[in-house]
């Protein structure tokens, strides 16, 4: 072994062609760090990030200033004296119309809307996506097409019909649906259905049929396969669905205004009411703090699950 190796080395050293090759370029081509392409690329990225980050910066510094300093100074200047008073006021004391409880009430309303809506919509979409991809029945493709068409109908068209439906169904069942959190939860769940079902269907379709068949031969049924085979493989897509729903429902304004009453307004609606309140002077610092508070939930979700989100999107989006 070593003899042959040595022989080759000796041969190589004697080989004139080899020697000529040795003098030329070898290995990976060196790259310049400061090429024109790089400067343009990173320059653009820098400008774009500044464009997005500057408003956030202004909001944060303003929310930490007192009103006199805001009136006196420059919006970009950092606070000379940091105060958390605007945050406290936004959370607990800011007034909308007659009540002065701050955003806290809206926050808890939003939480009470968010949690059941997310759970309900993801559960239903997951099961229907699973059925439509692995337990196809006669007309399942038609059913799916109808569902997807639903995603392209503008919300505005459906606003009022849904008001009537909620009222009538509520009357029939003897529960209040229109104007209650329950009604809004139903609306959010229904509107999340097309996109979520599509997402789950495509994800499950990308899981090989043979795996599904093997589980059936092993005696697992509809639920057994879903819970013990499919779901344990579905973390990325569950995270994507959760992010879509949490941010979508948290940021919703339209449905909140239309389908709830003043005491059950979600946080976004209440934020609008605080910021656009016409009485008294405009408290920019409180408004900024209120806005940041409202944005904290989606922001938190993005930070926690950014990596999983990208992975899930890639996994769910490839197969049509």
């Amino acid at each position, binding site marked *: 072994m070593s003899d042959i190796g040595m022989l080759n080395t000796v041969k190589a050293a004697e080989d004139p062609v080899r020697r000529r090759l040795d003098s030329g370029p070898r290995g990976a081509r060196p790259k310049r760090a400061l090429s024109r392409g790089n400067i343009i690329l990173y320059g653009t990225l820098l400008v774009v990030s500044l464009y997005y980050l500057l408003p956030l910066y202004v909001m944060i510094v303003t929310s930490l200033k007192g009103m006199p300093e805001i009136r006196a100074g420059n919006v970009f200047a950092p606070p000379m004296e940091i105060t958390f008073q605007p945050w406290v006021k936004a959370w607990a004391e800011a007034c909308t119309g007659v009540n002065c409880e701050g955003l806290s009430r809206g926050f808890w309303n939003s939480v009470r809307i968010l949690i059941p809506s997310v759970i309900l919509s993801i559960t239903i979409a997951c099961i229907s996506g699973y059925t439509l991809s692995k337990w196809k029945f006669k007309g399942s493709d038609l059913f799916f097409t109808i569902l997807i068409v639903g995603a392209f109908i503008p919300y505005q068209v459906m606003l009022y019909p849904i008001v009537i439906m909620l009222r009538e169904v509520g009357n029939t069942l003897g529960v209040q649906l229109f104007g209650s959190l329950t009604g809004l939860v139903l609306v959010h769940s229904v509107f999340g259905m097309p996109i979520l079902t599509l997402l789950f269907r495509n994800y499950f379709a990308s899981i090989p049929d043979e*795996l599904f*068949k093997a*589980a*059936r*031969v*092993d005696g697992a049924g509809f639920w057994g396969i879903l819970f013990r*085979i499919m779901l344990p493989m579905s973390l990325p897509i569950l995270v994507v669905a959760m992010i879509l729903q949490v941010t979508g429902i948290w940021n919703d304004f339209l449905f909140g205004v239309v389908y709830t009453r003043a005491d059950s307004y979600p946080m976004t609606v209440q934020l609008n009411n605080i910021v656009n309140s016409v009485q008294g002077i405009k408290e920019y610092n409180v408004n900024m703090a209120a806005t940041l508070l409202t944005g904290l939930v989606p922001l938190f979700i993005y930070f926690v699950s950014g990596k999983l989100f990208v992975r899930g999107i890639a996994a769910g989006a490839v197969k049509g």
Partner: protein
Amino acid sequence: MAEQHSVEIRHLDLDFGAVKVLQDLNLDIHEGEFLVLLGSSGCGKSTLLNCIAGLLEPTDGQIFIKGRNVTWAEPSDRGIGMVFQSYALYPQMTVRGNLSFGLKNAKVPKAEIEKRVNRAAEILQIQPLLDRKPGALSGGQRQRVAIGRALVRDVDVFLFDEPLSNLDAKLRADLRVELKRLHQQLENTMIYVTHDQVEAMTLADRIAIMKGGQIMQLSTPDEIYNRPRNKYVADFIGSPSMNFLDGHLENHVFKRGDLVMPMTGYEFAAPKVADRKATIGIRPEHVITGELVQGAPVKSEILVDVVEPMGSDTLVWGNMGDRPFRLRMDGNARVKPGERLPIGIDPSRASLFDASDETRL
């Protein structure tokens, strides 16, 4: 029933919309038999296997396993185990979890599960892998686990859908031998789908050649190779494939131009076959060459076109008159392109087909 049948398929039809994938298919598989379903891709082999497994509902017809009508039974109630081309192991479970999944679903007691998993692992020599996830296994190991999944369930019938197609050539040969040994050891009925004729010839007790959702011939490998029932089967089996020459059969003598071949020693299907247009099929490896040509019953010659030395033997591609003609010679044979090579033909080893309906005469 005179003989115990393990699987019986009666008048099975299966349509995908307007496409008829299986048509009036009948098949009896004996107890303990290794049956191979062989056919080109898309001929309906997997579809048939999935029907037997209960993963596809037939449009019409019946399926019996061990004398019981299972046409409407769930896959898990049929006494079958299935092994897939893509292994289809549950990725989030360990090997042990994969092996015991079916038993847990069947509510087998824990101690019994443990016993059966260990026994299967021993037979397949995968004990050291029991606590690994499928992702950490090689292709060959994965396929062993997949076989184990059927093994632990103590099934009557094993179904294999191209289980070796995803493996490289060396591993495929090894696992093929292991499968054969496993069958000798277990004596279960095995139904094995493949498009690879080497797998089919080496493993099968009987081979069913399929085409267009129908069975062309169901016989032993020897019978299929030596006495193909029609031209399709003759052409499909063998590599390189059989040489076909068109001509006339007159009084049990095949004639084609200068080539006159009295069919002495050939087993005709009927004592007296009437004169007609016919096609004769000669396997490349049955062509007589070298010194033996002198003693051959029929002599001819071909014009050599291409020579492929393969080590163990030599493939010669040439022409007999205007027809391409292939033959297989010894590895030491020295033949050059352009050469006229004398050959001999033994009619008793040839196959004769009717020119119009292509059935064996």
